[in-house]
């Protein structure tokens, strides 16, 4: 018996028998046990709740950054290209901050805190998702810069990671200090300062993008990374505690 025969039989059965009308379906649904979402399903499911605006702004920033890099390298100015890209990096973070601060901004935090997946878990998921997006954008910028300049990819990555991690740390500090709904504006201000600073760093330290300073760049990345991890753990702990446990990941 092939598939076509099978379908014919199913069709015939459907036509021959009147299906039973479900009785007390709501009552049944109310009492029925059902498997809960696993952490993996929850994690993937949250992608759809990140605003379209956040994706679009991030892409727009990325394209603008590439355009400025292209423009800078057109004049054969390696340092200018790195500076321009660095100045854009804090705004990638700002787009992510606006998304994660949404609960506070719109007063949804109270409802989100009473759900099975704790607010801490939700915050962590959002930060990971947006962090992945930001790292993809950073990688894109780095690769593009590699083709436009004669600086090695690893060094470019380090140069861009420093303003990125610095902005992440500063915005997280602000988020833990200020409970107000206007936190996004404060973070915007900080991003602006970091961005402008990137444009003038080489005026303060000559040859800052040369190999002799690479140790300091690397050290900065290490320290900022450690502070960031510590800050994230602290924020998650303060926002409703439990990250997740094994029963949630099952």
């Amino acid at each position, binding site marked *: 018996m092939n598939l076509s025969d099978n379908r014919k039989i199913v069709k015939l059965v459907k036509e021959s028998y009147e299906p039973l009308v479900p009785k007390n379906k709501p009552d049944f649904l109310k009492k029925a046990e*059902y498997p809960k979402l696993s952490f993996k*399903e929850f994690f993937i499911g949250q992608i759809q*709740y990140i605003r379209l605006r956040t994706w679009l702004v991030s892409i727009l920033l990325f394209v603008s950054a590439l355009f400025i890099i292209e423009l800078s390298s057109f004049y054969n100015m390696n340092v200018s290209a790195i500076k321009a890209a660095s100045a854009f990096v804090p705004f990638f973070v700002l787009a992510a901050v606006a998304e994660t601060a949404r609960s506070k901004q*719109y*007063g949804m935090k*109270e*409802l989100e805190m*009473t*759900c*099975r997946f704790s607010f801490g878990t939700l915050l962590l998921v959002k930060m990971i998702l947006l962090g992945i997006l930001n790292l993809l954008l950073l990688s894109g910028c780095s690769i593009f810069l590699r083709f436009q300049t004669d600086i090695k990819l690893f060094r470019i990555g380090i140069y861009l990671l420093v303003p990125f991690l610095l902005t992440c740390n500063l915005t997280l500090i602000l988020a833990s200090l200020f409970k107000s709904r206007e936190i996004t504006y404060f973070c915007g201000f900080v991003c602006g300062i970091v961005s402008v600073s990137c444009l003038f760093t080489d005026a303060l330290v000559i040859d800052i993008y040369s190999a002799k300073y690479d140790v300091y760049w690397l050290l900065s990345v290490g320290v900022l990374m450690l502070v960031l991890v510590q800050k994230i753990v602290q924020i998650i702990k303060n926002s409703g505690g439990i990250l997740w446990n094994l029963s949630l990941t099952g």
Partner: protein
Amino acid sequence: MELVIDRITKQFKNKIAVDHVSLKLKEGVYGLLGANGAGKTTLMRMMCGLMVPDSGTIALDGISMEEEQYRDVLGYLPQDFGYYPDFTALEFLMYMASLKGIPKIRAKEKTAMLLEQVNLKDVAKKKIKTYSGGMKQRLGIAQALLNNPNLLVLDEPTAGLDPKERVKFRNMISELGKDRIVLLSTHIVSDVEYIADYIMVMKKGTIIHKGAREDILKSIDGKVWECVVPEKTALDLERKFPVINIRNEKEGIFLRLVCEHMPYETASICTASLEDLYLYYFSDEISEGEGQP
């Protein structure tokens, strides 16, 4: 099913919002009555794990309110809940369902059922920012019921609902209270009177009365009076005792008041209602509130 609240206390700077409150709640509808600042919202927020008590414990069937299994069976409607304005009602409920760990297929069914139940089916695809206060409140009730909670905490659930919606809501709550613990706080005494099986009266952070409606009313039995008095006497009585009702009549001023003894020689005693009780216990706070700008 049993919710045990054991000597919980919460203090804000110099003010004790909740003072060593102990309760044992089983299936049924519990009404929490109290004036503003009595500690109702603080108590409810602690029950929902939004605030950590300074001392004491809260557990549902032995599961502490800090655990995720507790939140898994909890439904909560805050007094003033926020929402993402770009969400439609459908998106909002699906989002809340995902946070409550409900699988997508089940969430879709449950969402459709609840939207119909709260009469928002026709506007399910409209943005929440276009909703009226009552519609938002109904949406809030729907999200609280998404996970079919064993413990349902409703803070001022009838605020913003029109009389028809309130009646529908009362019926819905009565039905829900059959197989779960429902705790609701409200200023609207009649709501508690109609819905609640048990009433708890909270004042200055403590539960001053708890029990079935009839039992609780015993505390003011024989203290509710009605009389018609001249205008000058009415003013005098109004100053001295909590007045529940006042109106002009041909013969003088009609007063219904709560008083330990007979307030006027022609006064007649009458059956006490929950509103009388509320005014009796909170008359001092109501007067203070009225004096404020």
